[in-house]
């Protein structure tokens, strides 16, 4: 049909038809079919592993949250300064304040002076809140995660918070420890990734208690 056109022009015609074909196949059919199948087979996962307390959606099993409260003070820009809610297990520092509409790390380098200052400040704050030595504060408590939405903390950081949460809630330490254990996940298959405590489901369990 286009055999009398120069080769390069003809190739553009083929390219256009191929691109449109693949866009329909890979850009429309593929996501629609995959979404349809996923919605049927793994409905909960496909929709964000939503977790509930008393029938109300409170978050996602996988997306971390800030368990903070208004300190009553304002920063230089007039925004409320949020501090840790003492009745709750605390998640890690976040570069996006656990805003699900974004996700980011701090991107601060290993020798960055601002990061060093922040780490030291966080160490003091956590030690004061938990009533422990600064040297007992684990690394994940003073570092921001890669996503800013990390729902998990190390078992060491959870253990550090147990006494304070039990005291603030008037619960037995053993009861809180048991809730922590129930929300601790080991490495997948025993060796993939790291063990962690899911703070979102742990705090939901506290709320339903």
């Amino acid at each position, binding site marked *: 049909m286009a055999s009398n056109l120069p080769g390069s022009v003809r190739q553009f015609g083929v390219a256009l038809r191929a691109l449109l074909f693949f866009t329909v196949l*890979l850009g429309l059919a593929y996501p629609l079919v995959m979404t349809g199948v996923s919605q049927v087979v793994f409905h909960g996962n496909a929709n*964000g592993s939503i977790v509930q307390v008393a029938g109300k959606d409170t978050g996602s099993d*996988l997306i971390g949250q800030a368990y903070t409260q208004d300190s009553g003070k304002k920063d230089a820009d007039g925004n409320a300064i949020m501090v840790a809610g003492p009745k709750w297990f605390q998640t890690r520092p976040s570069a996006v304040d656990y805003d699900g509409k974004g996700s980011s790390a701090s991107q*601060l380098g*290993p020798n960055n002076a601002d990061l060093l200052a922040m780490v030291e400040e966080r160490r003091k704050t956590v030690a004061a809140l938990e009533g422990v030595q600064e040297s007992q504060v684990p690394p994940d408590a003073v*570092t921001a995660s890669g996503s800013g939405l990390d729902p998990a903390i*190390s078992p060491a950081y959870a253990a550090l918070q147990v006494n304070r949460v039990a005291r603030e809630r008037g619960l037995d330490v053993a009861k809180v420890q048991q809730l922590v254990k129930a929300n601790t*996940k080991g490495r997948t298959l025993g060796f*993939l990734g790291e063990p962690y405590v899911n703070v979102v489901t742990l705090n939901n369990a*506290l709320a339903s208690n």
Partner: protein
Amino acid sequence: MSDTAAGLLQVGFLLLCLAAVYRPLGGYMARVYTSDKDLRIERATYKVFGVDSKADQTWGVYARSLIAFSALSVVLLYLLQRLQHWLPLSLGLPNVESGLAFNTAASFVSNTNWQNYSPEVTLGHLVQFAGLAVQNFLSAAVGITVAIALIRGFARAKTDRLGNFWVDLTRTVLRVLVPIAIIGTLVLVATGVVQNFSGGHEVTSVVGQSQTIPGGPVAGQEVIKELGTNGGGFYNANSAHPFENPNGLSNLFEIFLLLMIPVCLTRTFGLMVKDKRQGYAILGVMGTLWAAFTFSATFFENRGAGTATQAAGAAMEGKETRFGEWASALFATSTTGTSTGAVNSAHDSFTALGGGTALFHMMLGEVSPGGTGTGLYGMLILAVLAVFVAGLMVGRTPEYLKKKITAREMKLVSLYILTTPTLVLAGASIAMGLAVARASILNTDSPHGFSEVLYAFTSAGNNNGSAFGGLSGNIPFYNTALGLVMLLGRFVPIVLVLALAGSLARQQPVPVTQGTLPTHKALFVTLLVGTVLIVTGLTYFPALTLGPLAEGL
């Protein structure tokens, strides 16, 4: 179990999984590219395209077809972004500004997936799944077609025909990528990756704060992002985001996906040149380099040097709790040794030498094991260089796979090897000379700032796409400069490889004699590992001393 034992088991399990698919997938791909039968759906497809599947192309026509297809892909992806506000599922986001749209179009068509934007606030669902994800399939397939054409250059004799680009492209998509992607999507959703069209779900937490749980057809895009060694995250945090990579299992599966095709293509290569040992030798070189870099990154991340890192007690800044140092380092080396560029942790916050390992790994030219197709042809180019060096040592005309390496072949190989370093080093130098480009650096108080710029151009020139994310790239200079570097770093080498393939295919094979250098033995593997390290080491060492080495030593 100790961290070290679990970490080593993790690496061992990954290698076991790759070993399990090596023969089946490598053999399957060899059959895909040597079969003369078209599937029924393919015959219908070729009718739509208007191509004769039996008509093999010369290298020139093959290259023009590839360039035409890629050029139109850039245009379509650019237009989709520029018009997104008026398209469905835009989530109310405005049209993407022109400089950024160019950068992103160049980035996804060149298999780089460098992202100067934050997806959550820039792109609606439609542009992601009908634009970016389509290029995740197609750019991966384009890379594979080039590798296959080069293999045919070695395998064929006395012909000027390398195969048909449209047939190779279609078969790669329909027979290789789509079937694996469908299975992989379901595996990822089973681990917790989301797959929906929601614009976000509002919840109120137990402390009464509202939060938006994001949505999107993520799993289907995530799987091809890894499988096609693309790397562009659906979310800004990429594979660190819990909805892209929810746990240790999804993490290992994603690493497996991004290594799978590049590793198995060495088997395809061995089968197609009718000497499987040649494939093992190439895989041996790739594996040696990958293992060395994985060891290096894991060691430095676990050691946790740096003032801020030591104050924290471990290199956990920018890392997810569920991954820790081991799974983060393993991901980092696998993503930079392929051309993937997906990240499950912030490379910018890695220790100086851990992050430097990722940077140097890309500088090797991404051949350990490299991107889909690009890794294999990149390594074969270096293999040609290695036999040339060996030939010089003994004063013989070098041969590789029974083809003579003459002046014409060496000119093409030399140009190939010079292209990327020129783009990377010239680009980084120009950026450091411009105040407006320096102003984008985040970590200004150490040599780390230079590392951010060097990493950006290395990533763009090698079509990787990972970043030292502190660099604010969305300014006209970086949008334009990195966009051009990505396109030139992708398509200049491709044309050179196809020209080389054309030149090799025309030759009559030379008989193997006593004097032929065996290219399947440990001696050659060592020689090739040395060639890779020396060529890239000499090229980039001065730049590395100004960045990661100055900071880390």
